[in-house]
């Protein structure tokens, strides 16, 4: 029997794509499906998924939990746990449609929740940390339940299958959001598991990733010291936790995060002006175990934007383009041209260069 994610580490290659409207104008998920489908050859049908931001405006103050259940028994246990710790505002099955390519679907449920005030107070944690702890608790202790999305006004939709099929399965064209990311997976030695598909998300952070990082276990063993538990043993998972740790807990901005995880080479740092050099030396030294080596192109989604980043050698392709307020990121230019043939600007970010795209509201507030 083949072993699924969590019991063994699975390296994989992939396709990534993202579209964001900086003016926060919402648009249908149809475009992202078209974009990712062009890169069909980069996936092998063992995983596909999407993160969509701005899709739950009516519940924007609640954490939207998307959960896979193996069976109804598990669901019951999990809901008991949720009930115990959260006020559940709304719960429903996530709407899907039958698609012949998508099989073996688990129970897929969605909950809009807010931490139970007394429980939160008793925990002495901040709200977000409380949510993270709860997600880990479910994922590590309730066997057969898996929270794969836990942010506000955003959701992750993923499955085993080609991404375009996954999109149709979840009826993504019926959602409207201001930002979508998509992932087509090419794992190398597994039938794939629904939970193992990308994006991988924690709170608002979603990560899609193409590559196979060679620093995995160094990163994993390091990040696990800070309260994370890598249950999937995938690159994406560990990258997500690192980003969560650096952004949410260490309060580094995304440029600083890039200087940690895709740090410039020492020889480059040596040539920097003194202030900049000191800062880079500091970040590389203090967070040395969070340096990520090996090929990757990642797109991190967060509440108000996306960040695209390549490994420092740029061992994976990634292209960024702009048209008016829309910004596109993809593994291949074709995935952008298919939805927007005429672009204002297109470029290939250098290895280790974080491309940070923020919505205008967010930019203004800064």
């Amino acid at each position: 029997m083949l072993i699924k994610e969590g019991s063994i580490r699975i390296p994989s290659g992939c396709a990534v794509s993202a579209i964001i409207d900086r003016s926060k104008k919402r648009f249908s998920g149809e475009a992202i499906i078209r974009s990712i489908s062009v890169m069909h050859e980069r996936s092998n049908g063992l995983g596909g998924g999407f993160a969509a931001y701005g899709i739950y405006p009516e519940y924007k103050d609640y954490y939207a939990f998307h959960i896979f259940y193996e069976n109804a028994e598990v669901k019951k246990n999990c809901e008991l746990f949720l009930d115990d710790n959260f006020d559940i505002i709304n719960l429903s099955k996530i709407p899907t449609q039958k698609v012949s390519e998508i099989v073996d679907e688990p129970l897929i449920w969605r909950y809009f929740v807010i931490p139970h005030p007394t429980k939160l107070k008793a925990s002495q944690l901040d709200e977000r940390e409380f949510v993270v702890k709860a997600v880990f608790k479910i994922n590590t202790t309730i066997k057969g339940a898996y929270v794969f999305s836990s942010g506000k006004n955003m959701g992750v939709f993923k499955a085993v299958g080609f991404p375009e099929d996954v999109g149709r399965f979840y009826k993504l064209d019926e959602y409207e959001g201001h930002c979508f990311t998509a992932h087509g997976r090419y794992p190398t030695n597994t039938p794939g598991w629904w939970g193992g598909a990308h994006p991988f998300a924690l709170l608002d952070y979603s990560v899609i990733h193409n590559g196979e990082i060679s620093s995995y276990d160094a990163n994993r063993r390091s990040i696990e010291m800070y309260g994370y538990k890598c249950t999937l043993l995938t690159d994406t998972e560990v990258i997500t936790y690192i980003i969560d740790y650096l952004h949410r807990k260490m309060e580094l901005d995304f440029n600083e995060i890039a200087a940690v995880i895709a740090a410039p080479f020492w020889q480059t740092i040596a040539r920097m002006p003194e202030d900049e050099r000191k800062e880079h030396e500091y970040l590389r030294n203090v967070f040395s175990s969070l340096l990520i080596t090996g090929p990757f192109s990642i797109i991190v989604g967060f509440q108000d934007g996306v960040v695209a980043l390549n490994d420092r050698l740029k061992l994976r392709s990634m292209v960024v383009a702009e048209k008016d307020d829309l910004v596109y990121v993809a593994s291949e230019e074709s995935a952008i041209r298919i939805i927007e043939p005429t672009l204002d600007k297109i470029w290939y970010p250098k290895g280790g260069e974080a491309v940070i795209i923020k919505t205008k509201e967010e930019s203004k507030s800064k």
Partner: protein
Amino acid sequence: MNYIYPEYEVVRNYARCIVCRACENQCANCVHRYIESENRMESKDDDCVNCHRCVTICPTRALKIIKSDHTFRYNSNWTGKTINEIFKQAESGGVLLSSMGNPENYPVYFDKILINASQVTNPSIDPLREPMETRVFLGSKVHKIKRDSNGKIDTSTAPQLDLSVPIMFSAMSYGSISYNAHESLAKAAEKLGIYYNTGEGGLHEDFYKYSKNTIVQVASGRFGVHKSYLDTAAAIEIKMGQGAKPGIGGHLPGAKIVGAVSRTRMIPEGSDAISPAPHHDIYSIEDLRQLVFSLKEATDYKKPVIVKIAAVHNVTAIASGVARSGADIIAIDGFRGGTGAAPTKIRDNVGIPIELALASVDKRLRDEGIRDRVSLIVGGSIRSSTDIIKAIALGADCVYIGSAALIAMGCHLCRSCQSGKCNWGIATQIPNLVKRLNPSIAYQRLVNLVTAWNHEMREMLGGMGINSIESLKGNRLMLRGVGLTDKELEILGIFHAGE
């Protein structure tokens, strides 16, 4: 009557011997002798320590040393070695003494661990074409971002050691090794951008110029410790134990306390230098904390403090305690570590393998969430670039090499340091022998060794798809065990090959 039959025989090929007498000139044990009346050389096997000096310099390759096939009646319980040891002790009434590392047949875990490489899904990296970084900082790395009012990050850290490659020369005192050996290590450390360690013998005034590459040691004897000794160093190491002889102190005989050695140690000429087994001001972990902070106080908190411990059974708990004692760096010395002299029985039976000690300490510190508070240096028979790769993947930040450095300089592991008559000019204070080690050669050989290892490490890193050494640290998925039990794999925290 001498019960002991010579262990080695000098074999001279008389058809090749040109009677140049270089062997005679170079043997401090006077094994070779010129017979004038016959114009030929003769050897006295009894005094041969098998150091290969004569063999190496013989211009015609006329010499070799073989193990004597003289034997006792077969007995796998009472071996010849055991019988001879009893003979020796019955004769002398003394403790058996030995030098260098434990030579006995215990498992070498490094040799049962294999390294990964990239194929297809992840490109290997060619270190000749892409940067391959081996720079390492040692010191406490507390994750806490402080910013000024402009949002600029405060970049100050606890004091760090900055190494071009994660290799340092481990503590070997001036006294146990020669002036020239010390100079070679110091020069090589400077050239390589790494550090060497004074050991517990103080720092000769000539070597203050290498201070930025010098780690000074504070050991139980406190020899040669004074204000400027501490001030000049890049880091200070408190020696709590040594892998070759955990639990006991040191003893440098008065015969070696001559001239500059005596001055440097700050003890009278000819007096035995006795390092007590414990530090008599450290009887528990809180005492260690006091010493750590005394040293930090004395040096203005500008230098990292290393605490060196021997790998013993409860090394994890000890390391955890040390990590919480204020030390910036922990050095763990495995049971194969070298020594200038140790009681044979202790050297060969006390302590645990460094691989297991490292794996469990690294895990314990991570479990406790304090791994970043300290850096880990491991030593005790690091023999090759692959040992280093494996050690780092198991969780070390850096390694100490001692024996390997000595071998690079010419040591042939004859394990007779205690005699003080090192034919290679390393473990001796006899001027005529000391001059045999020309630092300009020895230093270059050290530089070559580390450079070569660095090349190999870069190749292996590149093979794993890693281009910076920090991504290897603790990256145990890069390792697989072969022929190890489940328990061993569990302690090492690695999978078996094939898994």
